[in-house]
């Protein structure tokens, strides 16, 4: 095995990029501490130091294992997560938290704990998954796992904010949708890698549209049905939009046919229209989006408050720790730590700070695409595309929702929003990206070439 020949690989670029980022986090903690206490004191930096230690550790372990994967991804994640940690530490800590395993943790502490779990998962996948056979050969098993997750959510799930997304597992609640996303990507990548050539060569042409050959396509259509099932049963529009986006993007990359994507889009628009007509919650979401100011204290409460927060931020921002997070003891935006974390960042750091956050997400996305383009095999390429698209679309959908570009949906901003399932799933996806890029990274150095 190639992996057995691993030796130490100095990841210099990663080191140089991580250094200022790891400086940034304690610095941000310091600013918020000063702003919140109103006194020029350093305050408690424990969590910031913990965060720095996690990423430093991850870097050192990758070096030690001789990992030759991409070196920009981990720093990009570190930067996004760092901004997120600073904001979460600054928000009221009783918004969320854990009191399990004898630990009493506030929101930021819990998030840090999940970062730890996520980084471990990422390292395990990045280092351990040097042969992707287990992923590609058992894709139908993975599909079954996904369906099981979905079924479990339908049966055991409970509702938060109108959407049934959560399963209670004793001390922690998990969102199976987050893990389902990964399973879905693996399945589609495996399926398309196998049937790609058939799908491209055997299209039926009707006029200028080329219809994909149906027999090869049926599993995909079944998937479409599953996605629509989620919309209907779980009231989860965001996840449906995300899944469909991932699916269409992977299909496009695999076949290069814009018409397939077009057909998919038409189906989606038709489906959305039907959903709009049939389901009240879809309709109200859209109506709120079209005119949130119609009912600023009722249905449009959060979107309107979010827009006001963006306006308050302006170009320069209100300053870290100086945003109007609470008003008379109540949060100005109730879901500020999850759905509206971007708005909180944009309020306190302004447009000047919002752009770098978007920039880090773009680095992540374009490195992911680069990994896909350089991948040695089709499965790896499609896996990387799926994972990257998932992270990128999540960012676009939630920021678009925050800024009233598209209807608001309950999706997390990867690595920034609070949420264990989301953090874990995002780190697993980074692990997959690192694994794929490691394989193409070693190819150039393989003996005999």
């Amino acid at each position, binding site marked *: 095995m190639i992996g057995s020949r691993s030796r130490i690989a100095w990841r210099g670029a990663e080191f140089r990029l991580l250094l200022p980022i790891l400086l940034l986090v304690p610095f941000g903690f310091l600013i918020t501490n000063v702003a919140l206490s109103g006194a020029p004191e350093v305050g408690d930096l424990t969590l910031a130091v913990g965060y720095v230690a996690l990423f430093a550790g991850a870097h050192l372990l990758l070096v030690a294992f001789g990992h030759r994967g991409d070196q920009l991804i981990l720093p990009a994640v570190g930067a996004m997560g760092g901004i997120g940690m600073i904001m979460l530490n600054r928000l009221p800590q009783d918004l969320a938290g854990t009191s399990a395993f004898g630990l009493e943790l506030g929101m930021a502490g819990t998030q840090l704990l999940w970062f730890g779990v996520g980084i471990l998962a990422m390292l395990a996948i990045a280092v351990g998954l040097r042969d992707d056979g287990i992923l590609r050969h058992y894709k139908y098993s993975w599909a079954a796992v996904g369906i099981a997750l979905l079924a479990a959510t339908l049966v055991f799930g409970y509702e938060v904010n109108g959407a049934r997304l959560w399963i209670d597992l004793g001390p922690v609640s998990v969102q199976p949708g987050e893990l389902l996303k990964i399973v879905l990507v693996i399945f589609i990548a495996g399926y398309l890698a196998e049937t790609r050539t058939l799908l491209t060569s055997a299209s039926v042409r009707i006029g200028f549209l080329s219809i994909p050959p149906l027999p090869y396509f049926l599993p995909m259509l079944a998937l479409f049905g599953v996605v629509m099932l989620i919309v209907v049963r779980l009231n989860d529009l965001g996840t449906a939009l995300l899944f469909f986006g991932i699916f269409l993007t992977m299909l496009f990359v695999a076949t*290069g046919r814009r018409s397939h994507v077009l057909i998919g889009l038409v189906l989606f628009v038709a489906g959305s229209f039907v959903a709009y007509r049939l389901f009240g919650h879809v309709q109200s979401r859209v109506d709120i989006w079209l005119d949130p100011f119609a009912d600023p204290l009722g249905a449009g409460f959060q979107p309107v408050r979010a827009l006001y927060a*963006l*306006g308050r931020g302006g170009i320069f921002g209100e300053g870290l720790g100086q945003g109007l997070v609470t008003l008379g003891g109540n949060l100005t935006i109730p879901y500020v730590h999850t759905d509206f974390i971007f708005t909180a960042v944009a309020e306190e750091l*302004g*447009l000047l700070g919002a752009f770098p956050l978007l920039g880090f997400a773009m680095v992540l996305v*374009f490195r992911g695409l680069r990994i896909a*383009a350089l991948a040695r095999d089709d499965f790896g390429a499609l896996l990387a595309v799926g994972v990257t698209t998932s992270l990128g679309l999540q960012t676009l959908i939630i920021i*678009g929702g925050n800024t*009233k570009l598209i209807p608001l949906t309950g999706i997390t901003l990867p690595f920034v929003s609070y949420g264990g399932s989301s953090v874990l799933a995002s780190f697993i996806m980074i692990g997959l990206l690192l694994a794929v890029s490691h394989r193409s990274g070693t190819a150039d150095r393989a003996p005999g070439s």
Partner: protein
Amino acid sequence: MIATNVRRLGVYLMLAFAIVSGSITWWQVVEAQNLSTRSDNPEVIAARRSLLRGTIFDAEGQVLATSALIDGLSRRTYTDPAMTHVIGYSSLRFGSTGLERTFEDILVGQTDPNPIRDLVSDVLARQPEPRDLTLTIDRRLQDFAAEQLGSDAGAVVALDPRTGAVLAMVSTPTFDATPISGDPDGAQEPMDALRNNPAEPLLARARQGLYVPGSIMKVFTAAAALDAGVIDPDTTFPDQPREESEGFVVDGFTIREHDLGGIEPDLWPLSEALQVSSNVFFAHVGLELGAEGFLDYARRFGFCDSIRIGSPERGLQVAPSLVSGSLDGDCGPFGGEVDLASASFGQGQVVVTPVQMALLAAAIAGDGVMLEPYVVRDVRAHAQGDVPTDEVLDTFGSGGGTRVVSAEAAAQTRAAMVDAVNGELGRRYAGQGDVTLYGISNERSAGKTGTAELGGEQAPHSWFIGFAPAQADATSRIAVAVLVESGGSGSDGAAPIAGRVMAEWLRLSGGE
């Protein structure tokens, strides 16, 4: 091949990121100012709870509105209910109206009139410092005008024709805004009472009330026709004397003269026709001018569009006055000749605001130049006590003037209006508007009465527009429009009020 598709995907995603960046920029830069000043913004209302607002002074430095912190809440006190429809209210519960709304950001100090200082404060996140406003309105004249209206519903608008400054702008009935602006919990009850009051005290009649003008519209018709050259001061219409009694048939409809009160019809030129307020004469004039000419001049005078007292960004809004059927707030085409003829003497589809008619009077008084009106004179640093500070941060004036008719046409109209008040025939109609009756011996006024017939049993609205001093070679210092709802004929209701208000102002500003 996959690599090619991935590159294409990259381009699409890049595009999507660009769009999202644009969306963020839109809210944080382009819309930021609008969002932060929306008065329904709960944060704005909440922040206002403890924010002091600047003091508002009248032209002579008298306090009209002050703020104080009581139990941590910013409370607004208004000293003069007659000013309510100009200043508006600033309520912790209902948002703000009037100048309190249009000057919100300056009053609470969120915007510095000086753009550089504003940027510095923004960057330093300085606590806003309230700023004071000085109005062009003289409280003495405002109160005097309100007293004259008494318990009647109506409006008085007085302008300085030389500057465009608003000297008084009264709408009655009015109300005390202090209870609405005080304790947010206690504000609901007085507000409900105001909303349910059938006399509609919440309506700022001077700016928002639309009324049929009646004969005061003839001033417009005369000025427009003189400027267009379709008549001169000596033009007569041969059929007019006969039609005074028999009626003037237009398009099959008969236009009848109002009760001339025993005056024998004669072949009247402009001056006499305005003195007796001949509907037949002005119907002829309007038809000579033609529908297009009429609408063209109406637009020049500011009809057919909403106007603002102040700048377009920071002005009190005035409802659009219309001369023909409404078309999305603009004047539509005339329904026919008879509509045009009726509009020419102020009936038909014409509806106007008192502010618009005051502007018409001011334009005639100002030699045919119409100045954009303004009501806030300057912004000053916040005064601690009752005396305005000397630190003037920004001054305002008229946004500019437009020549609406030639100086010659204005002078001819003005002469006819002087006759309408002082002439042999006119005196019995508009004579009550003459300032000599109210203790001013050496000046004369010009004017025109209006009696807006509403049909049915309803008493007509009483109008007067005019200006003083108006004798030859004098420069007019005040132009007024007075409206008394259901006040009867113009000579009974509005003319004496206008005469007294003009005389009062000539007295008050006597030193000039």
